[in-house]
C-alpha cells in the first residue's frame, strides 16, 4: 500500500530551480534512501513533504490526502511525520526523557505519568533508558541521535524522515545509528532517509534514489546503482565520496566511547564519513 506519493514536485526560489520534477512512491513499511551531492535539494525535498517549505508545483499525497492543497492542517500533518536531523536538534534545556515527552504532553495532552511511561519505552527501544535523566550536553553524539529518534517515534508517526542522520558522527557512533535504522526496518517502520553515507545506504538495505540538480537521475539497490554500469553522475559522486572517506580517520583511531559496538552489517565500513 502506498503511504506517500510524490508527483512531479517542483520548487523555485529566487528564480533558481531547486527541485525540478521529483517523483517517487514510498510504500507502507518501506525504507527508501535518497543520496546526492551537497546542494542537490535533498533537505528541501524532505521539507516540502511536511510543509516546512512550499513547493511551486507538483502533488504530494500522504495517507491518501493531498498535502499541498489549501485547508490542510499543517500541524496535524507534521505530527504524523517523525523528523530526525543531522545535528540532532535536541532541546538543550530538557533531559532526554523530557525531549521525548514534550510532544506527548503538549500535543497529545497526555498526563505526565502516562507520557513518561511511553517515552521510557521508546528510550528503551533505543537502548537509552539508562540515560533518561541526562541533558543533551551530557550525551555523546550517537546517544543524542538515539534520543532524537526516540523523540520522533514517541508520537507514533506514520513515517520517519532522516536528514543525514550520521553526517555529524564519527564512524563508530554512526554505527549505532545504522544499527537502529536496521532494527527499525526489520520492524517495518516506514522511512525516508537522506544520506551521504554509503555505509549507511548499504547497511540499511533499502532502495536508493540518486538526486542531483533537483532531479532523480537513478534508482535501484546500492550495488547496482554504484556498480560498473552506473550513471556517470552517480559514478562521479561515488568517487568523490570514496576520496573523502580515504582522508577520514580510520575507525580504530576514533575517540574512546562508552557505547562501542562490534562491526555492523558487512559493507564498505566507514567509507563515507565526512
Amino acid at each position, binding site marked *: 500500500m502506498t503511504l506517500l506519493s510524490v508527483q512531479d514536485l517542483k520548487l523555485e526560489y529566487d528564480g533558481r530551480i531547486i527541485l525540478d520534477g521529483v517523483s517517487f512512491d514510498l510504500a507502507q513499511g518501506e525504507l527508501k534512501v535518497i543520496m546526492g551531492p551537497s546542494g542537490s535539494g535533498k533537505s528541501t525535498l524532505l521539507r516540502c513533504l*511536511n510543509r*516546512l517549505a512550499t513547493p511551486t508545483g507538483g502533488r504530494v499525497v500522504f495517507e491518501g490526502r493531498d498535502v499541498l492543497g489549501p485547508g490542510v492542517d*499543517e*500541524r*496535524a*500533518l*507534521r*505530527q504524523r*511525520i517523525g*523528523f530526525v*536531523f543531522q*545535528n540532532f*536538534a*535536541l*532541546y*538543550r*534545556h530538557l533531559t532526554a526523557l523530557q525531549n521525548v515527552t*514534550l*510532544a506527548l504532553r*503538549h*500535543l497529545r495532552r497526555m498526563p505526565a505519568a502516562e507520557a513518561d511511561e511511553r517515552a521510557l519505552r521508546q528510550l528503551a527501544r533505543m537502548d537509552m533508558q539508562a540515560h533518561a535523566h541526562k*541533558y*543533551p*550536553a*551530557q550525551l555523546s553524539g550517537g546517544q543524542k541521535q538515539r534520543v532524537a529518534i526516540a523523540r520522533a517515534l514517541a*508520537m507514533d508517526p506514520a513515517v520517519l524522515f532522516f536528514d543525514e542522520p550520521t553526517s555529524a558522527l564519527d564512524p563508530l557512533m554512526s554505527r549505532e545509528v545504522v544499527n537502529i535504522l536496521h532494527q527499525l526496518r526489520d520492524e517495518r517502520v516506514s522511512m525516508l532517509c537522506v544520506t551521504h553515507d554509503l555505509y549507511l545506504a548499504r547497511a540499511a538495505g533499502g532502495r536508493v534514489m540518486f538526486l542531483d540538480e533537483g532531479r532523480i537521475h537513478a534508482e535501484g539497490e546500492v550495488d547496482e546503482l554504484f556498480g560498473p554500469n552506473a550513471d556517470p553522475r552517480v559514478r562521479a559522486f561515488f568517487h568523490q565520496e570514496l576520496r573523502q572517506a580515504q582522508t577520514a580517520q580510520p575507525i580504530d583511531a576514533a575517540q574512546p566511547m562508552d557505547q562501542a559496538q562490534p562491526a555492523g552489517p558487512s559493507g564498505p565500513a566507514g567509507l563515507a564519513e565526512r
Partner: protein
Amino acid sequence: MSFLQILLQLAGGVGYTIMVTVACSLTGVVVGLGVAMLSRIGPPWLRGLLGAFTFIFRAVPVLVLLFIVFFGLPNAGLRVPPLVAMMLSLGVIAGAYLAEVFRGAFDSVDASEVLAAEAMGLSRFQILRLIEIPQMLRFAVPGMINEFTTVLKYSPFAYTVGIPDVMKEAMSLSATTLRGVEIYLAVGIIYFLIYKLLVTGVWALEKRTRIPGLTG
C-alpha cells in the same frame, strides 16, 4: 549620634528603596518580555513599531519621564500614585533596555531546535513558551542583573515624588543634624548592601535552575 545610629535611622527607608527597585525591575521584565516576544513572532510592521519604542525610551532621561508622568498626567485628569509613577518611568525605561537584552538572548537559541519543534507540529506560540523562553531567560541572566542594578541606582529619584526611601531619610537627617558626610557615607554602604543582596539572590536563583551545558 553615632554612625551606627545613623545607619539605623536610615534603615527605615530601606524597605521603600527595595520596594521601588523590585517594582520597577518587575515592570521592566514584563515590558521587556512583551516587547521581545512580540518582535520575535509578530509581523514586520509591529517589529518596526516596537523597535521605535525601545529606541525612544532608551533615550529619555528617567527624571524627565518621571516628572512627565507624575506632574504632567494629573493635568490630563489622571492622578498617578508615586510608586506607579516610578513604574511607568523607571520601570518602562528598564523594559526598553531589557527588551534588547532579551532580543540578544533569543538570538542565542539554536535555530535548529526551533526548526525541530516546528517539524514536530508545535504552534509558534508553543515553541516560544516551551523552547525559546526557558532557554532565553537563562542566557539573559547577566544582562538582567546589569539592568536591575541600574534600576537600584536610579531608585533615589523616588524621593522627588515623595516616597520615603533611603535617600529621603538621608536628606531629612542631614538637614536636622548637619552631618552630611557621615550620612551619605552610610547611604553608600546601604546601597552597596542592597546591591550585594540583589546580585546574590539572582545568581542563587540562576544556580538552582541551571542546566548542564546550556550556559557558560
